[in-house]
């Protein structure tokens, strides 16, 4: 077993608040690792530390063995660590296709000269990207929406578009912040299928999710956070029966 992404004694403070305390996690390559925990447990903050949006107060983040702590968010994305956001962030005034193309930004290679003269190389590169963007959209079932403005899509479709935008980058690790939150049960099924397919391709998926049933169904590993600490981790069924978890999380979350 090899860890593709790991943290060591990661801590994050906001003023006096300990958002994360001494977090050491190993994310195995090819796993579908769920992060669960009550509201304010520090799940999103953890993602933000992994992806360069927050700089941890102390501790280290390692990706494939090399340290990426404190790297700029764009650099982290460039390494193949791609994420979605809890409060979906699409580019509303761009078309769905362009949103996905933006995800493939680093795969667009043309220089200024070939862009200006629309050189064959530039056109080929753009055509290639477009067809890959369409494949990504097809993957999440949004191919027919390609020419709509992203801002015009309903909530569930935006979530799927965010996934397509991640996929076009051919990521090594995908971080999903509550992919199924706030969507209908039909959309939830759809999203669950898409996530499983991403995982089935061999991509490592880390997923924050409140929907325990979904987590139990698809995760290969679960880590439970509470107050910025790990209170349990392991196989889904083990975690489910862990008394600490039931007390800290399930007891509060599920009526």
């Amino acid at each position: 077993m090899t860890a593709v992404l790991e943290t060591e004694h990661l801590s994050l403070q906001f003023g006096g608040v300990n958002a994360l305390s001494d977090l050491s996690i190993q994310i195995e390559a090819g796993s579908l690792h769920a992060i669960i925990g009550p509201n304010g447990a520090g799940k999103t903050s953890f993602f933000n530390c992994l992806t360069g949006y927050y700089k941890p107060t102390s501790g280290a983040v390692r990706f494939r063995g090399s340290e990426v702590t404190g790297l700029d968010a764009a650099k982290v994305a460039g390494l193949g660590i791609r994420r979605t956001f809890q409060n979906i962030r699409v580019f509303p005034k761009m078309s769905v296709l362009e949103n996905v193309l933006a995800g493939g930004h680093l795969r667009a290679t043309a220089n200024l000269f070939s862009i200006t003269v629309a050189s064959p190389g530039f056109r080929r590169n753009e055509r290639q990207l477009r067809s890959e963007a369409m494949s990504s959209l097809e993957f999440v079932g949004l191919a027919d929406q390609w020419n709509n403005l992203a801002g015009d899509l309903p909530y569930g479709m935006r979530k799927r578009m965010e996934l397509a935008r991640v996929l076009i980058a051919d990521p090594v690790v995908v971080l999903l912040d509550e992919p199924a939150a706030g969507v209908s049960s039909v959309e939830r099924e759809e999203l669950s299928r898409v996530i499983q397919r991403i995982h089935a391709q061999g991509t490592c998926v880390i997923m924050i999710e409140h929907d325990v049933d979904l987590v139990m169904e698809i995760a290969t590993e679960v880590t439970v956070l509470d107050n910025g600490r790990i209170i349990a981790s392991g196989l889904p069924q083990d975690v489910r029966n862990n008394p600490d978890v039931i007390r800290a999380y399930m007891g509060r979350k599920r009526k």
Partner: protein
Amino acid sequence: MAMVETVSRGRAKLDGFRAMRGGLVLAVVVLGALIPQMTQNQYYLGVAFQAEMLMCLALGLNIVVGYAGMLDLGFAAFFAIGAYTTGILSTKEHWSILASIAPGVVIAVVCALIIGFPTLRLRSDYLAVVTLGFGEIIQTIAINLNQTGGPTGIYAIPALTLGSVVVTSNTGYYYVFFVLVIVFALFSTRLRGSRLGRAWLCIREDEDAAKAMGINTNHYKLYAYVFGAVLGSITGSLYAPALTAISPASFGFSESLLIVMAVAIGGLGSIWGVMFGAAVVEIFPEVFRSFAQARLLVFGVLLVILMVVRPRGLFPERAFQGMATRVRRRLGRAAVGPGPSAGHVVLTVPTEES
């Protein structure tokens, strides 16, 4: 299969859309090229030429404000840099106008880097203040330096020569700027359709999310600012021989504001919109000269109304598509958003439906 079908269906619609757009572009270009043939009135030609010049500046600023979403209130500074570089080099050093464009561009780029590098990481409102200050500084330098001719500026700037052709008439400069507008518009279109344009729009729409795409936002903001500076400076370099005299008064805050207005009225990020906006900003006050002092007031009131009614400008990007969606919404056919195969193009190109 399903996807291929959807795409090819989309393609067919897009091709129709493209053909229509191509025809429209051709019509506008031909019409524009014929304007000097339709009138010999020097006043009209002068206004038309000024409008073209403002279009060039607006296209330059559009990259900064329209694409990248950074409010630049000192854009006239780059215009001034081009005009003064050409003015000085052509009168004092006897450079040809064309040759003087390059040093103007170099100085503009260096200034853009010096101003942009530390400030572009700031939020947009700080940027507005810094660029405003930069505009004022450039104007102040022009007023106080001997080399720039002080408050009176530089006069007797030689004509633009293109090979054996010496451009002296209003008509001549009309065509020079006509070509420049087309070149700038084409350049903007190319940028917009590339990773540069996409990156800029992403930054405009949501800078943090742009980073998650792997976009180095600081670099791309700087690129936008530099491209804007280049277009502004080239426009200035050709403006100097067209007017034969330049003075600091033409490069103040009011000029910067005029360019911002052209971009905002027309539609941020939309090439057609921006050019139209420039024409409106230039021509409107002229048409309403009979209102004398009140014309600017009338203009201001209309501007406020416009910004309330159409906050994204007269012709924002994808205006037609957006309209189609809204129409469908209003008809209640898309209660949960655009339905399958909701190609907006269907509404704009009805003939493609069958």
